[in-house]
């Protein structure tokens, strides 16, 4: 663009005088921004006219200034918007970046938390079932122990009780390992059995206790099949019993003992 021709067109003068159209005004403002020579020329013209105007002053009345200034207040103005804008935009630029960092962190943490929670739950459920199982087992063990304790306690009480006569029946030739204790109450003649070791009775057969009174075997009743770890209550014996013996008989017992089927025997 020919700057000199533009200057000589007189449009700058018209601009300064304020007689240009809005389109021309825009054009001048745009071009003076682009071409420093134009801006220079414009400012020179403006300065010249300004000085010309200063040569034509009409001083306003002296009191006018006070009237005008009484209507003005000079509180410090807010920071101009264009000075605030950069900080805001800086904040505006930063926050998405921060978010970009924060979001995955949060999601990662959330995922991690979920995984941990899932693992925790699984572990808890596993532990629970395991504990339940252990609980059951312990309960069984405890009830077993309680039975054992009750059995042992009863045994201990019976053995210690002086009214009970302890009669040890040892294994004979047929079963030397066997051992059964008869606890004979001297006051009531009640007889209890504590089977310590005795082979399991074959099917169709049952052990039977005998009391020897005056050289004659007296039936004291049959042992129930599940005799292990139990105190068995037998029939009441006669006062003059000299010995006790157990033979293997047919189920339900026999009227007389089969002596060749004797397992244990003990004298009072």
């Amino acid at each position, binding site marked *: 663009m020919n700057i000199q021709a533009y200057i000589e067109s*007189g449009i700058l*003068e*018209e601009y*300064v*005088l*304020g*007689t240009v159209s809005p389109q021309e005004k825009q054009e001048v*403002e745009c071009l003076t*921004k682009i071409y420093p020579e134009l801006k220079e020329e*414009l*400012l*020179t*013209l*403006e*300065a*010249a*006219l*300004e*000085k*010309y*105007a*200063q*040569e*034509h*002053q*009409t*001083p*306003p*009345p002296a009191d*006018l*200034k006070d*009237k*005008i*200034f009484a*209507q*003005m207040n*000079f*509180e*410090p*103005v807010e920071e*101009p918007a264009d000075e605030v804008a950069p900080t805001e935009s800086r904040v505006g630029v930063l926050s998405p970046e921060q978010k970009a960092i924060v979001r995955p962190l949060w999601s990662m943490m959330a995922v991690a938390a979920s995984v941990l929670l899932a693992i925790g739950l699984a572990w808890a459920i596993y532990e629970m079932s395991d504990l339940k199982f252990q609980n059951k087992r312990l309960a069984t063990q405890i009830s077993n122990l309680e039975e054992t304790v009750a059995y042992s306690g009863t045994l201990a009480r019976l053995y210690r009780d002086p009214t009970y006569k302890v009669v040890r029946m040892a294994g004979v030739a047929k079963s030397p390992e066997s051992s059964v204790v008869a606890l004979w109450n001297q006051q009531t003649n009640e007889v209890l059995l504590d089977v310590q070791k005795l082979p399991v009775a074959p099917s169709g057969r049952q052990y039977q206790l005998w009391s020897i009174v005056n050289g004659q075997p007296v039936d004291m009743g049959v042992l129930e099949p599940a005799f292990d770890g139990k105190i068995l209550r037998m029939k009441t014996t006669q006062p003059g019993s000299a010995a006790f013996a157990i033979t293997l008989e047919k189920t339900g017992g026999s009227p007389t003992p089969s002596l060749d089927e004797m397992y244990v025997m003990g004298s009072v």
Partner: protein
Amino acid sequence: MATQKVKYSEEDLVASLKRNERAAFDYLYDHYSGALFNVVCKVLKDSERSEDVMQDVFLKIWKSIASYNSEKGRLFTWMLNIARNSAIDAVRAEGRAPIMDDIQEHSAWADQSAVYQPSLSTLDLKALVEKLRPERKILVDLVYFQGYTQEEVAEKLSIPLGTVKSRIRTALQDLKIFFAV
């Protein structure tokens, strides 16, 4: 009026004005009110109304200083536009058309101003300004001070528009040379 204790550069003055500093507005008033009031008076030709309009003008300058953009021109040009437009609006509000000075009347105003303003520092310049050929000077005054369009001036003074334009341009070029220090 033109002699000031504080001397602002245009840039500093604008910055201080935008910060709403009283000292800057004091300076602005003391420095420019005469020139602005001159414009208002020339348009209104009514001294009492001119005072009211001058109040409006200065308050308008104070209120809208934030919107002044130094990229678009000098501060005085901006203020002069406010003064001129406010005065023209006031005349129109009264329902009368702005009265155009004739050459004779205008010369009288100019002489009056010269009497008002025995500014020592500008005496030499004043002499230079007076060298402007009257037929050019009045055109500048009509357009610059009173806001007439060049077309209006051409019509009223029965001078071809081209002549008005070229005379004004020549006048401004002369002014530019006069004030180029």
